[in-house]
């Protein structure tokens, strides 16, 4: 199965990706976490730590530096440049922009290409997309079996989520996450912009806020906090089988 996670910056894409990846891995699934953001952060939410996340080499940079020869397969790239995250999750950073004029981003290995060409092959690929709608627009049917659109109860995040849903709906299954919901009024605000859809509610959660502050994985801080529990339940549903406690 291939899962892509979309939304406005700061909506909670990385928290969702990292926590769902860990929950799937804990339930015994083989998980490849693909960080498709040129500002890669997925390592932090997976529990690798900010310092280590900063040291991860992007596949694009690795290939450019000539660390792989003879046009390797994407599997070869993942093998070579992936890193191990807790619970056996394999983490791959597609690309990082760290200098001025970093070269044409259409040429060379791209996050889109990795997502497109990686076979799920019995494992789950979960891809944390770059903020915005460009990545969702470029998503072709078959690149992802499901797109998780992360919404927040703010006008800007909702506008982005509404558009992401409209774009992705034609291509694949879409699940909308109502993240950081404090009360019924927040949920109503989301329903008003994205009506007639099931919303997976991820409540506002002090554990997740605290994990964000310290740069640790929410699931390591408290796997039973309301927000983390909702994400574990989502992983369970995506996997189609109950996740053992």
């Amino acid at each position, binding site marked *: 199965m291939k899962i892509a996670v979309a939304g406005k910056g700061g909506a909670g894409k990385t928290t969702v990706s990292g926590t769902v990846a860990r929950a799937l891995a804990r339930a015994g699934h083989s998980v490849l976490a693909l960080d498709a953001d040129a500002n890669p952060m997925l390592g932090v939410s997976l529990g690798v730590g900010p310092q280590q996340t900063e040291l991860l080499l992007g596949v694009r940079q690795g290939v450019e530096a000539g660390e792989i020869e003879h046009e390797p397969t994407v599997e070869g790239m993942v093998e070579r440049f992936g890193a191990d995250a807790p619970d056996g999750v394999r983490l791959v950073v597609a690309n990082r922009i*760290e200098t001025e004029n970093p070269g044409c981003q259409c040429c060379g290995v791209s996050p889109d290409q990795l997502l497109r060409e990686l076979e799920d092959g019995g494992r789950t690929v979960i891809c944390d997309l770059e903020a915005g709608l460009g990545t969702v627009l470029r998503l072709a049917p078959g690149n992802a079996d499901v797109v998780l659109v992360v919404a927040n109860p703010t*006008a800007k995040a909702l506008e982005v989520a509404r558009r992401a849903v409209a774009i992705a709906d034609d291509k694949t299954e879409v699940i909308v996450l109502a993240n950081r919901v404090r009360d019924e009024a927040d949920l109503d605000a989301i329903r008003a912009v994205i009506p007639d859809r099931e919303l997976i509610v991820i409540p506002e959660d002090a554990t997740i806020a605290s994990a964000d502050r310290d740069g640790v994985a929410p699931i390591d801080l408290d796997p039973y906090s309301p927000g983390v529990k909702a994400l574990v339940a989502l992983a369970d549903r995506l996997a189609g089988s109950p996740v053992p406690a």
Partner: protein
Amino acid sequence: MVGKGGAGKSVISGTMARVLARDGNRVLALDSDLLPGLSMSLGAGSDPTQPPLREAAEKDEDGRWRLKKGIGPVRAVKRYATDAPDGIRLLQCGKTPLEGMEPIMGSVNAFYRVVHRLAGARAFADWALVGDLPAGPRQVAFGWAPYADIFVAVVQPTAQSALAARRVARVARMREGARAVFVANRVTGPADVRHVEELVGESVLAAVPADEGVARAERLGIAPLDHAPASPAVAEIERLVAALAGS
């Protein structure tokens, strides 16, 4: 204004533009984010469905976008910028439409060309230019804000926000003559400010407090300056404007 998504770039740039305009400056707000944000925070409502700048662009014989003849930065701003409160002019590159990028490519290309000529345009020498960049390092790396003397990296007191701000400030400082400063946002007290300063490795120029008035404005999609003009967050952004002007 640069930083991680959700750090508060639009809120701070929109409010800063309003404060500068109320102080008597002529202000050009530059919105190169393909996602909605700045217009709401300026108090100019939602974005136009068609980016006005698309009228400024045409394709040459080889199919490449260029500015139409006779359209320089002054004319582009005069004709294609829209009005925002307090006399601000707002120039946008366009917002990602549902049907793909094609309808806005002319506008995006025109925007990129116009901003590259703004810094050299004498007509704007005494204007304040406030740019709201999209999340992450991409536009800074590719020179989308050549007009900027100072890149303001907005940081929330979280590890990821600080990591993003450090990365983008590092890239910004590679640009000749550009400075980068850090501004903490949504801090709940001195411990948060210290946390941000430890994470980014230097002191912040301002620390905008977490503010219920701003949070409400964000839920409603309106300008903090209109919704909560007397809020502590707006007061700190006023202080930030003064600090930047004096620096």
